[in-house]
């Protein structure tokens, strides 16, 4: 057993867990945040994507112990004061989800993608290429791509307005 501590969605948390505990199990089972999903066990599907120290990580591929001391954000931590993150809002407005199972991972990957490229700098080809690590079986990706593009463009508008 090891004691693992991290800042999870802005809150300091710690727990004693078996050494082999995966980060996704820590989040889902120890912390009961079930928005992060397990879809494949082989780091292919991306349903478990979260942000660790600001970067997208497949939480089924990392031990909880490796996240000791890290700042972790899951889909539950994106909205602030009840206001949806622009990526969350864009997924709803563009019908970017159907069954909702891949959605948390898609949204977290999209947030990471926009962070890396800068808001407003994503085109369809880039988004499709960047989504390589996230599988969706329902939407055919059409509206996911549209959602991410819309969020990226909207966030660019927001940051311009703020300047």
């Amino acid at each position, binding site marked *: 057993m090891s004691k693992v501590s991290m800042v999870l969605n802005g809150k300091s948390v710690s727990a004693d867990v078996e050494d082999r505990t995966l980060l996704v199990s820590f989040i889902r089972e120890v912390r009961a945040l*079930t928005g992060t999903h397990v879809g494949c066990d*082989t780091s292919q599907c991306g349903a478990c994507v979260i942000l660790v120290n600001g970067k997208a990580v497949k939480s089924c591929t990392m031990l909880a112990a490796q996240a000791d001391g890290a700042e972790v954000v899951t889909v539950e931590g994106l909205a602030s004061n009840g206001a949806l993150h622009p990526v969350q809002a864009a997924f709803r407005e563009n019908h970017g989800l159907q069954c909702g*199972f891949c959605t948390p991972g898609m949204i977290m990957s999209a947030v990471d993608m926009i962070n890396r490229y800068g808001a407003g700098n994503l085109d369809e080809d880039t988004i499709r290429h960047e989504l390589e690590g996230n599988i969706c079986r329902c939407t055919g990706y059409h509206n996911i791509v549209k959602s991410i593009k819309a969020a990226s463009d909207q966030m660019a508008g927001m940051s311009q307005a703020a300047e």
Partner: protein
Amino acid sequence: MAVEGIGARALRKEDKRFITGKGQYTDDMVMPGMGFAAFVRSPHAHAKVTSIDSTAALTMPGVDAVLTGDQLVGDGIGNLICGWMIHSKDGSPMNMGGWRALEPEIVRHVGQAVAVVIADTQAQARDAADAVEVEYEELPAVVDSVAALQPGAPQLHPEAAGNLIFDWEIGDEAAVNDAFEKAAHVTRMEISNNRLVPNPMEPRAALASYNDAEEHHTLYTTSQNPHVARLVLSAFYAVAPEHKLRVIAPDVGGGFGSKIYIYPEEMVCLWASKRVGRPVKWVSDRTEAFLTDAHGRDHKSEAELALDADNKIIGFRVKTVANIGAYMSLFSSAVPTYLYATLLSGQYDIPAIHANVKTVYTNTTPVDAYRGAGRPEATYLVERMMETTAREIGLSPAEFRRKNFVRSFPHQTPVIMCYDAGDYDATLDAAMKAADYDGIAARKAEAASRGKLRGIGMSCYIEACGIAPSAAVGSLGAGVGLWESAEVRVNPVGTVEVLTGSHSHGQGHETTFAQLICERFGLDSDSVAIVHGDTDKVQFGMGTYGSRSGAVGMSAIVKALDKVEAKAKKIAAHLMEASEGDIQIEGGELKVAGTDKKLNFSEVALAAYTAHNLPEGMEPGLKEGAFYDPTNFTFPSGTYICEVEVDPETGTTEIVSFVAADDFGKVINPMIVEGQVHGGLVQGIGQALLENAAYDENGQLLTASYMDYTMPRADDVPSFNLSTHETLCPGNPLGMKGCGEAGAIGSPPAVINAITDAIGNNALTMPAAAEKVWSLYQSGSKEAAE
């Protein structure tokens, strides 16, 4: 909030919980004291189980129990069933072998469960499952359906001699033989339809508990049809009586058919939870899903099309061998028969059709309905034949199809179906225009100048949805009726709850079903809640598959709404001392026509429940139910056109444009309909280009993870150009046809027709992997050069 009724692009009511991580899927459920199940599975495709030794496993940390098939059988748990009886052409009933949820004697596919471990944690259960020692005596295996029919092939079930489950036929063989004798041209093809794995992103899961004081079971499970699950678990498997079993299908992460069936694992959890005296949870890992979720397709066919001198089709002959896997899953027998051969007429007026289907056991995962279920197999066959025939006779593919379109309705085909409405020219015209079909020559030349091969292919599909008229399917062998139920409860404060027997696992019922209520009463959608998926809350219903939730499920809601509206009008007329016929409902108010008298909908609702002043003899309350049994199937149709560019150096195919023009009848929410088409198209394109469940000769599934089975990803597919063209279905009150499967049904032949056009070689099979395309192009070019 504006009232969003029929036809509105209403945003989804269910989305907020999914985008904030608050969805509640089965694996998210926790019960105090729950244990975890892990299954011990056969590594062999065919073997005798000679011994199971749990001694070591039972000593491991956290392990509660190891249960085997002998205990299951000893507790009187019944075999898994197939619910649709098919008779062979000689009149004999299908030859169904036994299927136990835990097999004590002979395993027949890799991954079949022989024991289950229950332990305190999932990791402990999985560790202990590895420690259960099972001795097997291997038997020879057969994986190919045609090989399984050969003399001397390994035999799976004593009930099915020669592995043949049934040898079935449909249509008039003599009339077809006559047509071929008179034919001016005959096109012949061998066509195979590759085996697929449905792969909803949420793996199957179950959480079962037993209350011994109440003798009551609860099962949370990933089901498309919780009531059918309860019925089958009770009536056939005898796990629990129906009134002592609550089945809840909470948020379900996609199904595509694979979550219709009642599998061994869910049933074992239910049984085990009683036996070990604690709640039991099981969550499939992805490889278990590949090995045990019912697969789809896997047909091998020979087809012949006969034309007269005027290029009119006069006869169609099809012979198909359908691989059903090691056991007969719940609807497996219906898929290669009544869901397949009844669609072989396509959009065409064909006077004589005969199909023979042999369905066989093999040492592979059971095969059942997967998005489209039989109709994709029929459409692929018909549309590959149409395109190929057009090429052979030198007519344009569009021209040849138009020459043979059905244009008067109703149209009785020679294979049971009676098409009720459609306009096939309209969708073909729309698709050709959107795809700039006539401009392809210039685009081919431009691509050639860059060293690329451009090709275009079309597919004019028809399918049958809205399953189904209960008496009709009963006469064809179905063990259940296929009606749907609804209850509309108006609460005393005027909000509305709709209890539906349909189940939503991505289709957006909470939104579209609410639109019916908004339309009818002028309410905003925040006043409406759709309740589904819980057998303790909702009256018996048949669930969601076969694109039936609109045409059948919403029709039931409409019938219940008719009753609610009639009663509300009676109450309003009484309260306002007006004639019932003068009451109009508008904008959430019941008004007396031609006066300024009106009551709010909520005032009428309250009056119904206070019951202080109701018409003489009227029962209090405002709640009505309805069961809707359809009068016919519905027939969505359309044209898909795919344009590809193939790199002759590598064989890589890029889809450069994909156009879909569909007729789904009345569309309730265009946004959701488009989403359904997008998803279906990518599953169909996945089948055509990428996906294949590959077995080796020993029955090992080579593609049992996402590292081996090629799921379509975002950069494999294009964005789509969609349109809808409405002819109303006369068979249901809203005129709906269904849109859930069309994309997966219509797209594979369009893709393959396009690639074969590009490479000039028609021998392509699915999936069109780069190596295969490259080889065919190379051999085609050589042939041309010689």
